[in-house]
């Protein structure tokens, strides 16, 4: 009796072990591998409006960069400012070496004085010639009367007339001389003015109120014409030169509001505005270029050249079915989404419209809204995949 019970117990335990093993095998075969259902998470498709946005990156640039340098090749004599210094419009920033310019001005000054002296001499000659002419005139008149009274010979009268003519000619010559001397004086003055101007041109002067951003040459450096010695920008006039991927630049226009994220400021956005979209796009990088200005100039201007990320918000679109971009797949060359119809998978081809930066995509065609949509799946789905609905895929096993 006891033995029978023991044998019974043994049979039961063996059976239990066998059953357990078979159960595990069945579990392993059906719940893992290709036969296992794929965990998927689903949502209801909503009809709503989305606000697409554009995202680009750019660098902080000055709207105007004043590169101040000489107009002719020369040597730098002094540079008075350092980068970072504020300068006023008209302030002297530095000077080029004038070489012999002072001497040349002195020489011209001397020649002007000479011209002045020359003019004085000519004016004296003029006086003399005038006196001579007047005397010759009165002599001639007097002899004309004597000739009329027949008290002198015609020859004598003729001689006096000739004297008058000579005196008149001499006066004309002196008058011409005086003109020439005046012109000489004018020229000397103009020459001096010109050289003084050139001398002034060697002074490097700031055209605006701004800060010095660069000092490219120091005393003694020889620079060529047009090479900048000092760069000045207006810190109150900075903008961001932004590049938007052409494919995602649809709708970009001035004056859309923008959010600027400067790399040095981390995640603190600064308000801005699109100033203009450049008429020329970058053909090599396939980007649209735009200028974005700060809504309010920052207290401490960001360094020029700093990287900035810019988000431009476009207006809200009309209401329509919206799906997350994670739910869109390409099956056999067609874009579409996986829908759950009464527990079964169905692939619905769709035509997608605009999308926003949060990954919501507007569906133009193919969905009506209200369908059950597969967003995430544990692996790529195919028609006929067995599915298991879960809230979250992460941490799940098929």
């Amino acid at each position, binding site marked *: 009796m006891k033995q029978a019970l023991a044998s019974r117990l043994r049979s039961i335990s063996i059976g239990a072990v066998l059953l357990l093993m078979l159960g595990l095998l069945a579990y392993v075969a059906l719940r893992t591998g290709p036969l296992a259902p794929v965990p998927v998470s689903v949502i209801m498709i909503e009809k709503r409006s989305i606000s697409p946005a554009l*995202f680009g*990156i750019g660098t902080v640039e000055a709207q105007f960069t004043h590169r101040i340098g000489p107009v002719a090749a020369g040597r730098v004599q002094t540079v008075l400012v350092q980068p970072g210094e504020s300068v006023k419009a008209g302030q002297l920033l530095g000077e080029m070496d004038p070489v012999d310019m002072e001497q040349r001005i002195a020489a011209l000054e001397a020649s002007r004085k000479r011209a002045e002296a020359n003019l004085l001499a000519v004016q004296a000659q003029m006086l003399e010639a005038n006196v001579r002419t007047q005397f010759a005139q009165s002599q001639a008149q007097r002899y004309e009367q004597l000739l009329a009274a027949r008290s002198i010979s015609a020859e004598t009268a003729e001689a006096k007339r000739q004297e008058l003519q000579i005196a008149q000619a001499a006066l004309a010559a002196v008058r011409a001389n005086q003109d020439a001397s005046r012109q000489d004086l004018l020229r000397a003055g103009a020459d001096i003015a010109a050289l003084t101007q050139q001398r002034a041109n060697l002074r490097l002067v700031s055209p605006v109120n701004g800060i010095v951003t660069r000092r490219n040459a120091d005393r003694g450096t020889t620079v060529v014409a047009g090479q900048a010695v000092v760069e000045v920008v207006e810190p109150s006039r900075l903008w961001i030169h932004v590049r938007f991927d052409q494919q995602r630049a649809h709708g970009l226009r001035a004056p859309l509001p923008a959010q600027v994220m400067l790399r040095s400021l981390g995640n603190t956005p600064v308000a801005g505005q699109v100033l203009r979209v450049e008429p020329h796009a970058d053909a090599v*990088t396939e980007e649209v270029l735009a200028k974005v200005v700060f809504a309010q100039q920052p207290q401490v201007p960001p360094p020029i050249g700093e990287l900035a990320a810019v988000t431009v918000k476009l207006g809200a679109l009309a209401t329509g079915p919206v799906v997350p971009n994670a739910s869109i797949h*390409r099956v056999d060359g067609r874009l579409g989404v996986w829908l759950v119809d009464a527990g079964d998978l169905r692939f619905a081809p769709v035509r*997608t419209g605009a999308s926003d*930066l949060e990954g919501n995509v507007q569906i133009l065609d193919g969905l009506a809204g209200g369908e059950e949509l597969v967003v*995430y799946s544990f692996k*790529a789905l195919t028609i006929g995949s067995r599915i298991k609905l879960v809230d979250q895929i992460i941490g799940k096993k098929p």
Partner: protein
Amino acid sequence: MISLAGRDIAHAWSKFVFTGIGLGLLIGVTLTMAGVYRGMVDDAKALLDNSGADLWVVQQDTQGPYAESSSLPDDNYRAILGMAGVARAANVTYLTMQVSPLGDGQAREVRTMVVGVTPDGAGHPGQPSYLVDGRHLTRGHYEAVADIATGFKVGQRIRIRRNDYTVVGLTRRMVSSGGDPMVFIPIKDAQQAQFLKDNDAIVRQRERTAQNPALNRPGVPGLLDAVIASQSSNTSVNAVLVQIEAGTDPEAVAEPIRRWKRLSVYTRTQMHMILVDKLIATAARQIAMFLVILAVVSAAIVAFIIYTLTLGKIREIAVLKLIGTRNRTIASMIMQQAIALGLIGFVVGKVSATFWAPIFPKYVLLESGDAVRGFVTVVIICVLASILAIRAALNVDPAEAIGG
């Protein structure tokens, strides 16, 4: 008729079951090793599948981008888009590097393959084909979609070279041929990450260029800047992924690109061959060799266990023979026991392999086909081993039962 085998097993069932479990663990190891091999091949296949491409266009005369390095100008894709039969084409770069999450004290580095993709959304070549969390890339910069095996979470920030990226989506089974999880980032960032030198190198290179009198002429003010700008820009990618129009023969699309664009083009079959037969060939053969030895050893151990189990019962068999039991009955008892042992072993092996496979750091793929093959092999080995044991049992002298 009573089942001799059953009675015998029931007689010493714990010993039998424990032997079976031991055997099972050994079979489990063998199955796992097969899984490791399959996993390697599957990683290579996953790389092909998740690129979503029908054709790979790479630098001429290279077998890139996975097996060899390949570099081609990034505007080539426009020319390829114009070829007949091409539906979509996209640039892609691959770069294997260590990536670590930010703001996490001593966060561990993860070895990843950073993939630069054109962020055109789902369904475009190069994009991860499905996600398990988050969303696809929408911005052209500083976003990343990571494989879940990296351990990153949505919203986490990671650092790749000099830029920080926000993880916006997670995917699964997107691995390189070496099994490293992928991190997808926008192509322009990836180009920088791949080709941009570190800051110190850039500064030194600038100095070097400035020292060169031919490039830094006093009479040409802008020349140095232009030279430096051209040195630090890069416009290369590793490959162009091409999707062809439905119903087109891949080879018919590939051939004109090879001929007229003078680039190397691989179809999926060719790429699969390059990956499996060339890239992972040695590693896979190594594993396969190990698998063969393990299988042979397992078979030998199964045979020996059954043989010794039978020899342990040699006195009882002699008694059976003495009482006139037929040889067939004895033989079937031994064979049934051997097969039962094999079955227990297989079940234990299969179950244990399934439970420990996910713990492996790299992918272990337990194929049903392998399981079936393993099952058949186990049964055959058990039958063969039992034949040895049966021979020994039948040769026993019944006199041993009383003598000894």
